[in-house]
């Protein structure tokens, strides 16, 4: 996999989310991603960035255009230094929430992207990486 472009955006407050979503849209449009694929990617990002703000106390996002087998895609990394997730398997289950939400954030975001990776260590923080390819496969 080749990284074609790379940028960082710090997310510390809710208004940063709007800017972040717009920037993803620009990148996705740039590689010619369809509207449905864009919407899925941005919705997944919106879920993850909310988790980062609510549970991780904000953090850093990385926005990249990547390419694999000459198919472009958008890769997003969400890194926080919050309390981490005790049981990642449980957190990935539909309907599970430690907050008062619907518990759709993590599992829903996973369904909306092509590649999903989560690493979390209690006391150190959580890093989630997602990729959505242009062709959606």
């Amino acid at each position: 996999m080749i990284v074609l472009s790379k940028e960082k955006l710090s997310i510390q407050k809710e208004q940063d989310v709007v800017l972040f979503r717009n920037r993803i849209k620009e990148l996705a449009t740039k590689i010619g991603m369809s509207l449905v694929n864009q919407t899925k990617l941005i919705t997944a990002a919106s879920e993850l960035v909310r988790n980062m703000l609510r549970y991780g106390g904000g953090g850093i996002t990385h926005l990249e255009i990547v390419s694999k087998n000459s198919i472009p895609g958008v890769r997003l990394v969400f890194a926080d230094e919050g309390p981490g997730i005790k049981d990642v398997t449980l957190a990935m289950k539909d309907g599970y929430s430690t907050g008062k939400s619907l518990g759709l954030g993590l599992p829903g975001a996973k369904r909306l992207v092509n590649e999903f990776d989560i690493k979390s260590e209690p006391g150190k923080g959580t890093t989630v990486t997602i990729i959505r390819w242009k062709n959606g496969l």
Partner: protein
Amino acid sequence: MERIPILKMGPFLLVTIQVDLYDRLALTLENDLINMVSKTEAKGVLIDISAVSIVDSFMGRILGNIASMSKIMDAATVVVGMQPAVAITLVELGLTLAGVHTALDVEQGMELLRNKIGQIDTDEEGLYDSFI
């Protein structure tokens, strides 16, 4: 503070969301709408989301909340104008917006609300008749 305007149109309240929502804005709207339903004794709430490109689980929950709260306050809620890409994404996300009435555009949404009010009237008449 940024706010989404709520218009009163006869017995209905009309909300057109023209900006991309962030959580606090959505919560403020929920609060404002319920207060307006109470203040104006509105019978219906129409929310136009045709300009909204992203509806995630939080926003979906707010729409559901508005519908449930309005119902308790004796008002029907209809969400209109959802973009196809948003509908596809919502279902994949796992959110079906159960309990929220939807229509394709404002016109059809208004029609739906009018029918709902009409229905209530006939229902009550029927009840009255059977009482006699």
